[in-house]
């Protein structure tokens, strides 16, 4: 069992948890992920590692309530435990040699962009952190973000924080203004990562994306997480999750991400029934 030692609600849909998992904390590096399972009936769900404390033996995860399992995870509290928590899985991010970069985070992706930006910033790189949310109430980790970069640009879809637009528009503005990035790191929803890659393709700025496809074991066994990268089949769990964004077939990844939509809806329906105590 893996006890939840801290829970912090970041906004109405996003929650941070610190989980005691010494075997994971001992080896975790930025860019890697874990897989958790809540209980005996639970599914295995991958989440990127948002932070770790080797001494305390804890790993931080940040998740958004998007489906049945994440809704259920959110009902747990400090003192409760997860049945399974395995990792660190995947290859760590390769950020060596980066001097001037833009780290782009969209929505929940901000939670993962944050440790990346912090690691780069701590290593002395110049980091523009460009993050986007639907509205100002959804902005998370503002203080942490500020401390993890050279420039912080927060965009909102509705302009409620006074800065209306998408992260891609902000990135374009920075590129046009002559910010000479050697690398762009994009983490967030697939359409956002795709749009960033389209933008950086022409000026030939190296762009790294973090993929989060459906997977089961996370060790290369099921092949469910396969992606086409540069015309070759890659497994996100062992070859990634970071890939050269200019080589990723995003349209295929988006189609694969929709494979179990109807089943997810069915599972969520069951969840609501359990919560209200109504019969299915």
């Amino acid at each position: 069992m893996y006890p939840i030692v801290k829970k912090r609600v970041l906004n109405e849909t996003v929650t941070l948890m610190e989980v005691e998992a010494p075997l994971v904390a001992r080896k975790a590096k930025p860019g890697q992920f874990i897989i958790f399972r809540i209980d005996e009936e639970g599914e295995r769900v991958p989440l990127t590692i948002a932070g770790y404390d080797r001494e305390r033996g804890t790993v931080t995860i940040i998740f958004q309530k998007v489906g049945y399992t994440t809704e259920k995870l959110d009902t747990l509290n400090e003192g409760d435990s997860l049945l399974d928590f395995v990792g660190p899985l995947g290859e760590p991010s390769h950020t060596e040699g980066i001097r001037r970069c833009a780290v782009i985070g969209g929505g929940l992706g901000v939670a993962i962009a944050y440790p990346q930006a912090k690691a780069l910033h701590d290593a002395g790189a110049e980091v523009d952190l460009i993050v986007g949310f639907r509205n100002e109430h959804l902005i998370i980790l503002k203080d942490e973000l500020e401390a993890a970069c050279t420039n912080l640009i927060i965009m909102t879809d509705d302009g409620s924080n006074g800065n209306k637009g998408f992260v891609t528009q902000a990135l374009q503005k920075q590129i046009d203004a002559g910010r000479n990035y050697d690398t762009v790191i994009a983490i967030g929803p697939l359409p956002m990562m795709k749009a960033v890659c389209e933008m950086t393709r022409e000026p030939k700025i190296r762009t790294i994306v973090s993929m989060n496809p459906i997977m089961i074991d996370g060790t290369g066994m099921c092949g469910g997480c396969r992606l086409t990268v540069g015309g070759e089949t890659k497994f996100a769990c062992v070859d990634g999750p970071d890939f050269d964004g200019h080589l990723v077939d995003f349209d295929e990844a988006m189609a694969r991400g929709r494979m179990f939509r109807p089943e997810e809806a069915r599972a969520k329906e069951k969840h609501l029934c359990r919560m209200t105590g109504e019969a299915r």
Partner: protein
Amino acid sequence: MANMSLQKHPMPEQDPVVRAGNFKEVALGYTPEIAVEEAQRCLHCKNAPCVTGCPVNVPIPDFIDRIKEGDFEGAYQVIRSQNALPAICGRVCPQESQCESKCVRGIKGEPVGIGRLERFAADTAMAAGKANAGKAPACGKKAAVIGSGPAGLTCAGQLAKAGWDVTVYEALHTAGGVLMYGIPEFRLPKALVEREISSLKELGVKIITNAVAGKAFTVDELLEEGNDAVFIGSGAGLPNFQKIPGESLCGVYSANEFLTRLNLMKAYTFPEHDTPVKVGAHVAVIGGGNVAMDAARCAKRLGAEVTILYRRSEAEMPARAEEVHHAKEEGIHFHMLTAPTSIEGDENGFVKSIRCIEMKLGEPDERGRRRPVPIEGSEYELPMETVIVAIGNSPNPLIKKTTPDLPTERWGGIQTDENGRTGKKNVYAGGDAVTGAATVILAMGAGKKAAAAILEDHPS
């Protein structure tokens, strides 16, 4: 007086029409009366040719004698002396090419039903709660076993019996490896695997789940942490694909993914269990091995029309004859001498059909199997919503990557001598991680040999 019937007593089975709609075990097992009767077919040959066909050297005539006498518990203990997992072997061993292929009764008529008797003895003893062999006195030696599949469990059991302190590390959340995630419930009930594993725990074997070798720890760290020996039984976990167009469409699964969703995650009970599986009305399974049969029979149980596509003819099929027979009985279609050339998708990225080409058999390849050659102009298309690729697995690279001084073959398998010693001191390996995808019993045989080598190299 020996029972001179030329046929082995048939295995009582669930009716094919009924069982194609459930996940309960197909074979129901012998009753005590049938078992004693079948045991009486054994001639107790002095030279026991059957034993030479057994990768773990079970003293077959001895245990069958006990069954004849009605001493079922004694029969089980005789098997247990050489085989750590009898209830499993009695079900999934290819006896027809091992022990039973050497049986003298098979010269004229059918061999003795050794596998069925082994299963009977194990089930009877376990049902009576007689599975516990007791802990051996500690000898002060310590071993780490990577992987809790048949190779790892067998190696761990042998070492524990010799008094070693053994810890097994498993990457998944449940111990058992392919016995849990791969082989379906209707062929190997999971409760039974769990019972076999708990009897290993009673021997003192510790099992740590959610522990991925090469990620959470390395082989070198296990040695530094005071293990006298490390055994690698990590299996052949990485699924192969055909590299034909359309393999990334929604609705295409590796057999590993499909079987793991069903067996380990219990997707056939969805939404009771949270992991879903999606199966269309028409399912194609590519491949001709036991895994292909398992996948096809699972899909059938989910209500699909299932077609197996195999590029050679039935004679070359690597699957056990019994599995092919069961699949046919359950109404699975076989398209032999058929190779898929592409999978076609609809506008949403879901599978809508599979294109195939007919094959004929040409010259034998290096393994002596006749090579399939495409027949020009014979292409055709079958409507499909689901495609399951069951064409084998490659060894998982995680351990190789993080243990640079462990010699491996070019295709990724770990190099060992015939007793499981690798090129790295105090490191042993066995099972699919060494041989590539093979059988449960060969992996068990390798685990047992490696345990013997470990005991020989580390005398207490």
